[in-house]
């Protein structure tokens, strides 16, 4: 019998469809009977949606500037074969 704690361990696998048919079925059975776990799965799923919609990575300007400089430099010297360090 699957307990709430067991379900929490495999919750991501369930959400991502990575469980076997039998495991997935026992999760579904548990969810039918357990409101707390329904809330948990719902919230964990909302969390993954949040991550999907989140465009993280504000790039720091110094980094971008450095890339631009180095690329510009590389384009200038493109005719000469690139040295590898």
């Amino acid at each position, binding site marked *: 019998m699957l307990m709430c*704690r067991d379900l*929490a361990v495999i919750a991501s696998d369930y959400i991502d469809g990575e469980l076997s048919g039998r495991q997935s079925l026992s999760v579904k059975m548990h969810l039918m009977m357990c409101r*707390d776990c329904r809330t948990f799965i719902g*919230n964990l799923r909302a969390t993954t949606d*949040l*991550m999907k919609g989140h465009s993280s*990575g504000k790039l720091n300007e110094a980094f971008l500037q450095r890339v631009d400089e180095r690329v510009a430099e590389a384009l200038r010297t493109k005719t000469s074969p690139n040295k590898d360090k």
Partner: protein
Amino acid sequence: MAYQKAVREYSPGMLAVARFYLDHSSAEEVVQDCWVTVIDAIHKFEGRSGLKTWLHRIVANRCKNKLRASKREVATDFSEGLEPDLAERFNATGRWDLPPKLQFHDSADTLLENGALSDCLDKHLSALPETQRSALMLYEAHQHKSEEVCNILDVSASNLRVLLHRGRQKIFLMVEAFQETGEC
């Protein structure tokens, strides 16, 4: 110029890859080096769907080489499935002791319109262990398939599952606390 657009669009993902393997400054260095070497090829690739994966693979290979040269390894804990803060919310019989109280009823888009939550998410993402963050970024934000993420990060399928689940639990706990208290 086309490459400047590409640099801005693709660098966050490339940095996410590099940070899996290397410290912050080495990671930036590798990504910079990458741009310099791929810049000729970028025009041919423009608009093609495989560009992101291609760039991520190049970054990963360079990082792996660098790690190999320095004989270091990526240290990761794949041992436990549950975050301690979540694990302690179950009683000895395996039932919820402290169940989730609130439903995150808002859709993700509505939640993200809340600038404070978005900032909080940024803060907690950057506090995650590098390995968990990189896995989450590639799998969720950049929507790579599992096999691609395993390939890029050089982890087994089961280890990727652990990284994703551990990272998600931390973010889950953060959103929960934020919804309850309104504070990050």
